[in-house]
């Protein structure tokens, strides 16, 4: 709506909601293209037909999942909600691209916390993925094979969030910059143990303290990789310590 009004794309504070005060301050209905794409079929064949597909009660119908990363046949797959990640990754997307096993996957786009091979039998519906500690979000499923550096992966996503932060709320604008700098330092093997505390502290101070959900989303990669693969962070830092590479660097320097 802000873009349509010719402004910077910053979120509006809600309430009032767009349904009463939207574009040009008039009532506005905003719908995802996915919702609109489903409508003709629901209207044409009836809601019972739609509800008979997928995983009731809440996750009915089909969804298009975009499988990316280290699989043989990445791409977009429309499947009924409720199939398992194992089926989506190994049957539809052709399995892992090489003989390296799966190490991690992101179930629902960049803002969804990472999951591990033990979550492969989780069903692709909103409730099951939430129960596994993540979310189905955009439906972007990213698969990583054994040998992928999880700290690097979290940094790549963090750089994305840093770049995409609109800059309205300080916790997200400044916090994402700090997170990127701290992560780059760790990946470059110049990190210190206390950086891990800094990361968690920053994440906690971004989460829930911003106008839109972007702030919450931006901490997911770091928090979840720290949860499942903390030893990888520790190893990088220990290597830095043993090689005595640590130089104190002024904070706030743009890399």
């Amino acid at each position, binding site marked *: 709506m802000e873009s349509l*009004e*010719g*402004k910077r794309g910053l979120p509006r504070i809600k309430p009032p909601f767009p349904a009463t005060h939207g574009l040009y301050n008039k009532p506005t209905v905003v719908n995802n293209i996915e919702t609109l794409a489903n409508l003709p079929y629901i209207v044409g064949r009836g809601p019972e037909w739609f509800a008979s597909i997928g995983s009731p009660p809440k996750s009915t119908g089909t969804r298009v999942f975009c499988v990316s990363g280290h699989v043989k046949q990445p791409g977009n797959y429309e499947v009924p909600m409720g199939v398992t990640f194992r089926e989506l990754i190994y049957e539809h997307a052709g399995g892992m691209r090489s003989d390296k096993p799966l190490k991690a996957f992101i179930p629902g786009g960049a803002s969804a916390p990472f999951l591990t091979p033990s979550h492969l039998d989780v069903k692709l519906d909103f409730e099951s993925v939430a129960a596994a500690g993540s979310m189905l979000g955009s439906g972007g499923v990213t698969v*990583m094979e054994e040998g*992928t550096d999880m700290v690097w992966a979290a940094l790549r996503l963090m*750089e*994305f969030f840093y*770049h*995409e932060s609109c800059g309205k709320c300080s916790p997200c604008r400044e916090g994402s910059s700090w997170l990127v700098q701290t992560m780059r330092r760790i990946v470059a093997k110049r990190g210190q143990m206390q950086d891990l505390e800094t990361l968690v502290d920053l994440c906690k101070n971004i989460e829930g303290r911003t106008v839109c959900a972007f702030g919450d989303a931006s901490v997911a990669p770091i928090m979840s990789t720290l949860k499942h693969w903390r030893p990888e962070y520790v190893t990088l830092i220990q290597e830095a310590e043993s090689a005595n590479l640590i130089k104190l660097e002024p904070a706030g320097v743009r890399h």
Partner: protein
Amino acid sequence: MLKEKHATEIEEIISRYPVRRSALIPLLYLAQREEGFVSEAAMKEIAGLLRLTPPQVYETATFYTMLNLKPVGKFHLQVCKSLMCGLAGSDTVIGWVKTKLGIGPGEMTTDKLFSLSAVECLAACGTAPMMQVNEDYYERLTEETFDRILADLKKDGTCSLKTGPFMWPEPANAVKGET
């Protein structure tokens, strides 16, 4: 001046909206189509057309990364470097640009033909690695297709490898772009 050259198009764009300011982004895009980037002169002119102040135009123009505020090459290569493309080898693609054209992100070749930006996710993660050249997507890049894209762009100004369809199994003649 945009006004002289595109008077009818500008009128048409402004007439689409109940509020003049809404025409801002489409007009910035028009300016970019004209010069390859949005110049300060163009922003001032657009401000006049929409009865805005130049800072109002500037604040919007600086927000959207699809608007170039500096000159770019005739072919602006935007290689996606986010995680999903990174897993599929986007750093390698950036490496090809470096070895084949001698430019890194943010640079332009001396003949002003190519410039490179490393950008964030362009929503083609399922067909990574990918790059956008001006308005076209080129996906599932391999060194072979990449070479062909560069050669075709130089020769014809366009390349038939743009935008899918992408499917599995890959059609045997996919590389030739005759799907």
